[in-house]
């Protein structure tokens, strides 16, 4: 029956062209995962290599590493990101760019982003929000407006539908038709972003058969009908975690943060060679690797990956 069914599986080498076709300079890009889990880091490196600029970014309400690398690489003009942090420390490139005025970081919160994605996923122009009281965020939030309930007469807020041009997501498994399965306990806003976005590309750590998908349909987290392209990229979330397959590479993220922080201070102080570490990182780790295998070699190879797999297996 499925002999003539169209596949959505693409080769990693096709990614850059696809991303460039589906995401223009200045467009709104959505990134899946949260903080250091399930981030589409391999896909983000392709966006950087593709040279897109002036992007607007939205994500689940917590982001950090990959967003900071995109800002460091000069791809970003505006962010609609509630929290941007490496959790144990701030995001250096984000902080530096906002303080320098080169990136505009809108004050949005979880409800504006989640509500906006919900509205787009549901096909309506806005989502009502009540739970914004006392904070300065809704007062400065470009996604928020005041509205009156037609039933109760109460004053509340509306948050505007967010419809990204492209969503980049990462999951553990998927089939060649684009049925996606997260094995992780946490999936954050990935499903909602898939439903809200015009185009969706998902990297998966491993391809599975459609028979395997049909055997457990309740476990499909993103049905194929929302997915435009699926690509198999082992360790595609590195250095963030992809549980239960591999854990978070905190040392890698710390190492990046150190060179990015040095660059930030150098930029602020106008001083010397302190940005060289970041430039080297962007060249050596982000831009130079031609394949995921090259990337994995650059970040420490088999020894590093095995350690991360063992940590995930021990949890």
């Amino acid at each position, binding site marked *: 029956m499925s002999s003539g069914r169209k596949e959505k599986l693409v080769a990693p080498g096709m990614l850059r062209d696809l991303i460039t076709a589906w995401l223009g300079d200045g467009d709104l890009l959505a990134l899946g995962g*949260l*903080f*250091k*889990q399930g981030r589409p880091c391999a896909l983000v490196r392709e966006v950087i290599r593709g040279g897109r600029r002036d992007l607007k970014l939205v994500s*689940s*309400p*917590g982001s950090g590493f990959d967003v900071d690398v995109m800002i460091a690489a000069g791809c970003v003009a505006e962010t609609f*990101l*509630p*929290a*941007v*942090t490496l*959790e*144990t420390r*701030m*995001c250096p490139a*984000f*902080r530096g760019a*906002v*303080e320098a*005025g080169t990136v*505009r*970081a809108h*004050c949005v*919160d*979880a*409800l504006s982003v*989640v*509500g906006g*994605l*919900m509205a787009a996923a549901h096909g309506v122009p806005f989502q009502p929000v*009540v*739970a*914004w*009281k*006392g*904070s*300065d*965020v809704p007062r*400065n939030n470009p996604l928020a407006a005041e509205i009156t309930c037609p039933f109760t007469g109460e004053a509340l807020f509306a948050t505007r539908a967010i419809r990204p041009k492209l969503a980049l997501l990462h999951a553990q498994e998927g089939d060649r038709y684009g049925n996606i399965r997260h094995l*992780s*306990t*946490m*999936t*954050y*806003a*990935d*499903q*909602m972003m898939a439903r809200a976005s015009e185009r969706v590309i998902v990297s998966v750590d491993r391809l599975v058969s459609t028979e395997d998908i049909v055997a457990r349909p309740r476990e499909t987290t993103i049905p194929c009908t929302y997915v435009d392209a699926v690509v198999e990229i082992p360790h595609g979330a590195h250095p963030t*975690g992809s*549980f*239960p397959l591999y*854990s*978070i590479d905190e040392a890698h993220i710390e190492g990046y943060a150190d060179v990015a922080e040095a660059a930030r201070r150098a930029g602020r102080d106008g001083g010397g060679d302190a940005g060289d570490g970041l430039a080297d990182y962007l060249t050596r780790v982000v831009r130079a690797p031609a394949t995921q295998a090259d990337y994995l070699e650059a970040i420490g190879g088999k020894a590093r990956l095995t350690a991360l797999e063992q*940590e995930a297996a021990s*949890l």
Partner: protein
Amino acid sequence: MTDTRCTPAELQAFVLSRELKDGEMGAAGASAAIPMAAIMLARHMHAPDIQIAGEMFVNPRPRQLWDSMLDDRALGACEAAETFLELFGHSHRGLDFFFHNGMQIDRFGNINLHFIGGSIDRPRMRGPGAANISYAGTSRRFYICTHAHSPRTFVPRVDFITSPGYLDGPESFHAAGLKGGPALCVTPLAVMDFDPDSLTMRLKSVHPWSSVEEVVAKTGFELGLPDRVPVTDLPDAGTLDLLRGKVDTAGLLRR
């Protein structure tokens, strides 16, 4: 023999654990090793029926603490997984308790995580922002738990209200329709609560390694001072055993 000299982080977790009541439902937030330790400890001690929910996991069983406490490392083992879609509803219904940290905290317990100085579009210092600001206003109460106690953190007035405390006091707090508000502020040096009339912060107890003078000096606004300021109760040996042996098995709070 257990070393009963606890660290500031351990004491913060212990102080907070005693505030949580059996049968309540709450969550710890992001970057939440101390709050999650407090909840877990309370469950081991006096509140076995605390429900941990409202973020994207229900009743997790972390084998150890982690700095984040919002990913599968810590929370993969739990009774149910939710997503941000359900979090939207929780944020509106509110919880019994929640926890916040702050880059700036003022005497009304307002919290700033967005920016210090300059303007919103060109700040002198841009902070991380916050994911969920709503629990501060919808929950029965929240706790402020900080890693630092300095005049830079405790300021007379925050530059931007990320999560509302008592705003400008009783009138504005009630006018805004806020619920609950901050109950305690627990720092590495002291425990503060809020005067029920003025809703301003006052000293409640001082940790044994600090003093009223130190706390006052490191607080950037006029802290309410009762006639007598007790020393913060320390956990006893059995409690510390539980905290170290069952909750913080990796020793994160002892770093």
